[in-house]
């Protein structure tokens, strides 16, 4: 390639030496100025005219055409045809219009669109580049964005181009908000310029230079895996926020079937549309991610996710199978299903509404009652009632959160396994004298949990109340071991958590001899309702999820009781509480 014009040649040389080899909207204005200078104006003066606020593309083209020489025409044709450069759409149209190959796209006759930053370099020390003088530079770190609550338009202003259009920004001024949480080697940064009138140029993306030791992130909360009912699992990006780094390599492996799916993340950190992998509800899908440098062999897993039934493709009438103790040899249930018609809530969810059924899942009602006691709104928001669009039946959508924080929706109807002589076999409520008026939120919540986990048997052989606190609130938990934490530490933590309305549970030891005649039961989970100091003595307030059987005798036998700290520490092994 040979460029003859002395003003155009250095511009072409700079582009040829750049890594992008791209002529964008900002650079094309310099080319126009280099062409315009033949008409009796200097390059700098032509550049000033071309960047005059409010100037239209047609006016810019006219300024350049006034100075266009034969040599420059040939040079422009060389740039277009022989240089191997790439062009932004606006830049290419300008140059083609200049040499008469195309009509100028005027964009309605308005001013030239704002240019994009050019000549940009970034490393851990900062970002430098060029833009129209005075333009604000906006940026977002696409590599750290997946762990932030950010959309890709949630940018940070990191600086402004000076009078010559240059910007030299050190790392300290660039870093400081979620959008620019860091400036690490290998990170993908998205930049654009914004004029004072609010118009913005095209985004450009670049990698921060240096030795890349930070792998791409993967935010599992933003991925939903659903059984499509046809032997495949659909992978859906469930939010407008990025899931991973643009261009990241992802490998999904069905751990049951061994099927693998390799995918490259889109430029927005999403997944290509309509992705599916062979599998079904209940399968475990392992996810590995690489930025191309770190974990390049995809051997280190980012997470493992469950394929779950989805409200859209699982019949609400599909009831979870009973616990194995309530299943006959032929696989049928010992108890019939009964349709309940009572209200979902009566005066909102309360801990006293919860009564454990004939199933080994004390951890679940203990946690559910704890949430009802201190954060009832969480449950009101988690369980919603509607009419099924196809059947018109009353159904309930119940929200749960996976350990990674991903929200799942489970839909159930109001059919519950029921004894012939009384109420529900499983989760129950004390006010069930009239089954047609029985408050339903707790049995519905437990049924949905059983459906989510697979069956009543899957939830009925022990478990962790802390995991249920997370499933209901979407928040992680703190754990206190009564062997290691002092009475004062535990009392203060419980009191603080109660004041902040953070649900809590406590569990007893499995040493059964410790509990005989104590009114407290071994291997059992309780709701922690709070802490109080009376007459210089400190107490923990508790509730047995059975809704009865408590320490002491206050004449109520409703499950609520309190223990002085020394007795609490003797009988209880641990306390779990939702983090703020």
């Amino acid at each position, binding site marked *: 390639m040979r460029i003859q014009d002395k003003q155009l040649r250095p511009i072409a040389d700079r582009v040829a030496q750049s890594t992008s080899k791209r002529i964008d909207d900002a650079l094309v204005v310099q080319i126009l100025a280099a062409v315009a200078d033949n008409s009796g104006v200097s390059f700098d003066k032509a550049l000033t005219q071309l960047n005059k606020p409010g100037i239209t593309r047609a006016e810019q083209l006219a300024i350049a055409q006034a100075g266009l020489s034969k040599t420059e025409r040939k040079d422009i044709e060389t740039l277009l045809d022989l240089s191997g450069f790439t062009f932004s759409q606006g830049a290419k149209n300008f140059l083609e219009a200049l040499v008469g190959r195309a009509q100028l796209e005027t964009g309605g006759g308005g001013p030239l669109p704002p240019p994009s930053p050019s000549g940009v370099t970034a490393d851990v020390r900062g970002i430098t580049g060029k833009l129209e003088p005075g333009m604000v530079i906006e940026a977002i770190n696409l590599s750290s964005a997946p762990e932030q609550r950010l959309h890709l338009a949630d940018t940070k202003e990191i600086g402004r181009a000076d009078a010559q259009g240059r910007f030299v920004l050190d790392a300290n001024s660039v870093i400081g908000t979620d959008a620019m949480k860091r400036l690490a080697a290998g990170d993908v940064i998205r930049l654009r310029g914004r004029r004072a009138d609010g118009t913005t140029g095209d985004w450009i993306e670049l990698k921060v230079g240096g030795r890349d030791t930070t792998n791409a992130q993967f935010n599992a909360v933003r991925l939903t895996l659903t059984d499509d009912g046809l032997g495949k699992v659909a992978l859906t990006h469930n939010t407008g926020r990025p899931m991973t780094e643009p261009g990241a390599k992802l490998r999904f492996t069905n751990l049951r079937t061994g099927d693998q799916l390799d995918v490259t993340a889109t430029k927005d950190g999403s997944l290509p549309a309509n992705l599916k992998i062979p599998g079904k509800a209940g399968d475990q899908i392992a996810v590995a991610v690489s930025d191309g440098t770190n974990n390049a062999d995809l051997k280190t897993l980012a997470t493992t996710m469950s394929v779950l039934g989805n409200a859209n493709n699982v019949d609400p009438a599909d009831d979870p199978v009973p616990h194995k103790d309530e299943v006959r040899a032929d696989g049928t249930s010992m108890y019939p299903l009964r349709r309940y018609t009572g209200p979902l809530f009566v005066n909102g969810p309360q801990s006293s509404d919860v009564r454990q059924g004939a199933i080994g899942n004390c*951890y679940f009602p203990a946690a559910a009652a704890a949430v009802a006691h201190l954060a009832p709104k969480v449950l009101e928001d988690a369980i919603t009632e509607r009419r099924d669009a196809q059947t018109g039946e009353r159904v309930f959508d119940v929200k749960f959160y996976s350990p990674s924080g991903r929200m799942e929706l489970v839909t159930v109807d109001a059919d519950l396994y029921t004894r012939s002589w009384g109420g529900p076999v499983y989760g129950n409520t004390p006010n069930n004298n009239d089954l047609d008026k029985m408050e339903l939120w707790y049995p519905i919540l437990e049924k949905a949990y059983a459906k989510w986990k697979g069956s009543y048997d899957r939830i009925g052989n022990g478990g962790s109340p802390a995991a249920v606190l997370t499933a209901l609130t979407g928040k992680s938990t703190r754990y206190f071991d009564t062997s290691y934490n002092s009475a004062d530490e535990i009392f203060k933590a419980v009191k603080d958590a109660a004041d902040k309305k953070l649900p809590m549970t406590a569990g007893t030891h499995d040493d059964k001899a410790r509990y005989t005649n104590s009114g407290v039961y*071994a291997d059992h989970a309780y709701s922690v309702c709070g802490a109080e100091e009376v007459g210089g003595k400190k107490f923990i307030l508790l509730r047995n999820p059975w809704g009865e*059987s408590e320490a002491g005798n206050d004449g109520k036998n409703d499950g609520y009781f309190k223990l002085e700290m020394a007795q609490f520490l003797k009988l209880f092994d641990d306390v779990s509480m939702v983090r703020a």
Partner: protein
Amino acid sequence: MALPPEPIDTVLVDAKVVVVGFVDAILETGPELPQRQAKKGERDLGNKAPWQRVRLTVERTLRGEAGKTVEAFKPEGAYIVATGTRGAFLLGAPEGGSAPILGRYGPDTWREDVVVAAFAR
């Protein structure tokens, strides 16, 4: 397993003798049973304590006939008794000389006043 107590009315029908008293001797204890180990924070694992053959000192008899002492059998289950354990004992039909203690948690299944109230219904 920390299951709730059975509804008392469903157990009372099998109770031939109901006494209020305490364990004054552990006569025999069955072998330790395999225990499922809990992960951190897990509850309701359902581990069972071994069976025990015990002698009860009777303070009051609420149903049936009983002498001053009764030999009783605590089945494998969710609780264990010790000398001095007291409460209302619901006893089933004797087998092999020992009457089985009914109720998922033996004398801790229902308080004495709950048992008395059930009789009154």
